[in-house]
């Protein structure tokens, strides 16, 4: 659901600290008709210019807090942090020197677990300009 829209170009850019690029981030929207707890994210898989992003390098930013991506996949992660329907979830990839400014081919696979339907996976591929 919403496959064409789960990968957005909003806020697509490098992340800086003290004058240096330390990563880059993209904003995702949910592939379902309602919001879900973060712990119901089954998979966020990113490929940039044909190269798989290491899940260990990914952090998820949500309502002013930041969680290592692998953390939200763990059993007993809190059930009350909702990825709100229609709102963006920011995924930052930690990487020294970030990503070269400009256009990159980004592929996202987003899988979420739902109540009564099996885990649904949406895929979206776009050329995004990273600021």
């Amino acid at each position, binding site marked *: 659901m919403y496959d064409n829209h789960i990968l957005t170009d909003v806020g697509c850019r490098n992340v800086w600290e003290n004058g240096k690029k330390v990563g880059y981030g993209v904003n995702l929207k949910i592939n379902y008709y309602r919001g879900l707890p973060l712990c119901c994210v089954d998979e966020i898989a990113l490929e940039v210019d044909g190269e798989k992003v290491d899940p260990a390098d990914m952090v998820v930013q949500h309502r002013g807090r930041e969680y290592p991506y692998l953390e939200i996949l763990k059993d007993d992660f809190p059930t009350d942090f909702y990825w709100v329907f229609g709102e963006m979830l920011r995924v930052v990839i930690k990487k020294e020197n970030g990503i070269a400014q400009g256009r990159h081919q980004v592929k996202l696979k987003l899988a979420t677990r*739902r109540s009564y339907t099996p885990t649904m996976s949406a895929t979206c591929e776009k050329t995004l300009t990273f600021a």
Partner: protein
Amino acid sequence: MKTNRDIKLGVSLYSYQDNYYFHKHDLEGCIAAAAGSGAEGIEVFADSMIAEWPYITDAFVDKWNGLMARYGVEQVCLDHFADRAMWKNKQLSDDQLFERSSMYIKAARKLGCSTVRILHNEHIGTGFSPVRLTDVKEVERLLPLCAELGVMMALECHAPTTIDDSIHEPYLEVAEKLGMPFVGLQADFSSYEYCFSKAGIGMMVRQGATEEILHFVRNSQREAYFNGVPFVYDEIKHLVEKMNPNEVDRKILPRIAKKSPASYETLKKYASKLVYVHGKFFDFDENGQVDNIDYPKVLQALQEGGYKGYISSEFEGNRSMNDIGWVDEIEYVRKHQALMRDCLGYNG
């Protein structure tokens, strides 16, 4: 606009999901859209349109009640979900699922909804859901809370099941056993589809299906229905084979060729016992009729059977059409409400 009719019309805000997802309308805008369609009841998915969910603050409750007053509508139903597969390798225990279900029921009460659409284990039959949903044992545990709060659990009977499918009966029996009549049947018009909607054809074709075959099968379904005979796919299968179905067709056909409407007689018989109804629809035909559900017949059965309660518009065509552009959900619901008023004789 509030009435004192036996059958009242509502809108499930689910119908406006694209407007919300793409930030055209916020919760208030969706309620305004529902009120503007002429509906008097609101069904809300807390998981979708209450941004602070799973918490509901007093400030939100006040805002909510204010919106009901401003738009001259009333809160009717809140949708419960059963996210048991909460973690990758671990599921909610029955106790935990009970806690979450209680949360939905208390939220319904806070918002003044007399009904919770409960996601019971047989919602879409058996064998499809990957986890055990809210089963009879859970419902039994929830009944005292529902009785205390005065909230009715509506068992949404969605295709491929029907309201008279015996798989829903144990829920009613447990309520009777406890003497707590707070669980009841909810019809969803998906059970009354006599063909598949043309809303889905475009998307199926974009996924690789053969347009001519889809139209042929759909027309055969319609012909059978309007001739009053059952549609049997095996009777046209040889004709479909001649049209050279590809692999996508072969995957899709068994699913969409199954359509046949549940009995209107049964609906009439059950009508007075139903606690809620979903007026599901996907698209209209050239005559302004829902293009795969016989609304005049379905609504006649409900009316003649003495249904008392809400029928809420549940537009689902957005999902099969929005991959290629904007679907005007507000316009769809407006027409749907007008059609339902027509069928029920409310326009005369």
